[in-house]
């Protein structure tokens, strides 16, 4: 049982590391797509297609570069999480009312000031909802990490499958589900607050 607790924490930490990095990159890519009209299609298409690669295949390819272990899993999770974050950042930024952009520009804000004082804060509710989707998805995908030798709750599940031990499978699965539900619940709460304030 202590083992399971440790694996749960490990699982969560791996996912959170990936999400933090993915958020940073995702928002950056979202901003770049928003600023450069011809790049937006390329970036969005790229993160779109990343999502279509089966997770097992993606991790296997990454293994060639990063070897076995947690790093490969984190990189895989980052790539998977990019899509909702980049897309929502892009949609959020383009969706900021043109009047507000006009006002911000007319008052003498530079491009960067407009981004950080007006456009990003106003898009944040949507960006956050992208992060939420990415987090919940990453929690479940991280289970496959066991196949490339990383830690987390994939291990007890995989062992359960190999030994045909049904209760081991359940024991590994339940923490994943509970984590996903808890993250979803609390992040949705925050999301609602953000949306209400942005009105």
């Amino acid at each position, binding site marked *: 049982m202590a083992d399971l607790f440790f694996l749960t924490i490990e699982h969560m930490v791996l996912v959170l590391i990936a999400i933090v990095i993915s958020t940073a990159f995702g928002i950056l890519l979202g901003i770049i797509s928003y600023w450069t009209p011809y790049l937006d299609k390329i970036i969005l298409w790229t993160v779109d297609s990343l999502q279509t690669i089966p997770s097992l295949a993606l991790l296997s390819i990454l293994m060639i570069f990063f070897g076995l272990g947690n790093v490969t899993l984190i990189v895989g999770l980052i790539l998977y999480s990019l899509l909702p974050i980049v897309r929502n950042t892009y949609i959020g930024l383009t969706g900021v*009312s043109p*009047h*507000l952009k*006009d*006002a*911000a*520009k*007319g*008052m*003498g*804000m*530079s491009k960067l*000031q407009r981004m950080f*004082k*007006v456009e990003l*804060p*106003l898009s944040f509710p949507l960006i956050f909802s992208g992060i939420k989707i990415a987090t919940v998805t990453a929690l479940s995908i991280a289970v496959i990490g066991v196949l490339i030798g990383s830690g987390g709750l994939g291990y007890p599940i995989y062992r359960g499958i190999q030994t045909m031990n049904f209760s081991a499978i359940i024991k590994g699965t339940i923490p994943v589900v509970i984590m996903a539900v808890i993250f979803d619940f609390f992040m949705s709460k925050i999301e609602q607050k953000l949306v209400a*304030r*942005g*009105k």
Partner: protein
Amino acid sequence: MIQFRNVSKRYGKKTILDNLTLDIKAGEFVILIGPSGCGKTTTLKTINRLIEPDSGEIIIDGKDITKVDPVKLRRTIGYVIQQIGLFPNMTVEQNIAVVPKLLNYSKEEIDAIVHRLLELVNMPYEENAKKYPSELSGGQQQRIGVLRALAASPPIVLMDEPFGALDPVTRDSLQEEVKKIQKKLGKTIVFVTHDMDEAIRLADTIVFMNDGKVLQVASPEEMLQNPADPIIKSFLGKHMNHENNAANLVASDFMRAKVLTVPKTKKTLECIELMSRRDVSSLIVVEEDDTYLGTVSVDKIRAQGKAGKEIKELVTVESMTVTRNSNAQEAFELLIASPTGYVVVLNDDNTVAGLITKTSMAKAMGEALWGEMTQ
């Protein structure tokens, strides 16, 4: 002082500004007005370089604005838009402080500015500063929008139909406040509107534009008296009659010209017959040479008249009369006092010009107020 020198702007084939040349004097409240698509908003936005003209130059206080960094330029020019554009993620205080912060004012200075400005529009700091824009009414929001534009004391403030989306009562009070503030602080305000009421109310100078050209630059008074173009005339509409004529209206403007007169030699029964056919209760009686004699009422003929007699003995001469050039107000007062409900208008040669009744008076006043009536 803002000078436009041969400024042109095209979008594709469409010419928005056509070789525009215009001077805006410092400290003036200047209103750009004209039909939609006339280029007024484009003109406004070239001043803070939100729109760059294709050719020509714009000079502010002797400096060609293309030589100034647009971001720095905009910080010295206030900007208010119709959609208000308060940042919903910032409080009232933070919204007002945007430009001072961009200009690196100290915290104490900014604090003082916010306090002073909120006081200027009677929105106490304690009650309002920490609120978010969504917690304010539309009128309050635009007040803050105006304050935000004033915060860094820019000498020039641009306003793009700032009160267009407000209800009439709120608009009235905001117009008054803005006019007061402009006078008090001596700002140059360039203000776009399509509402002539607003223009006449606020402007020192009205610039009337059409098809990217300036048709007339004049004070409201001057434009009302001598509109330079039929388009301006139609835009002024009701104001033309109202502003121009109310003071110099004369009795003849109020009268009904077609009136029934009878010579004093007419017989009583004929008169009664005439009155019942025309559905009137009295007639105007004239001498043989058509000069005015008096009136005769149906009651009087019935009470004292004898069949077959001429009506000249029954004529009442006390009826109210005015000459056709009498002041309208005088005629109006007579009409109110008149027991018969009408006033006779006479020409200079004492012939009858017309009749002012309560109906003709009401109709004429309606026209003065709202323009030509269809009926």
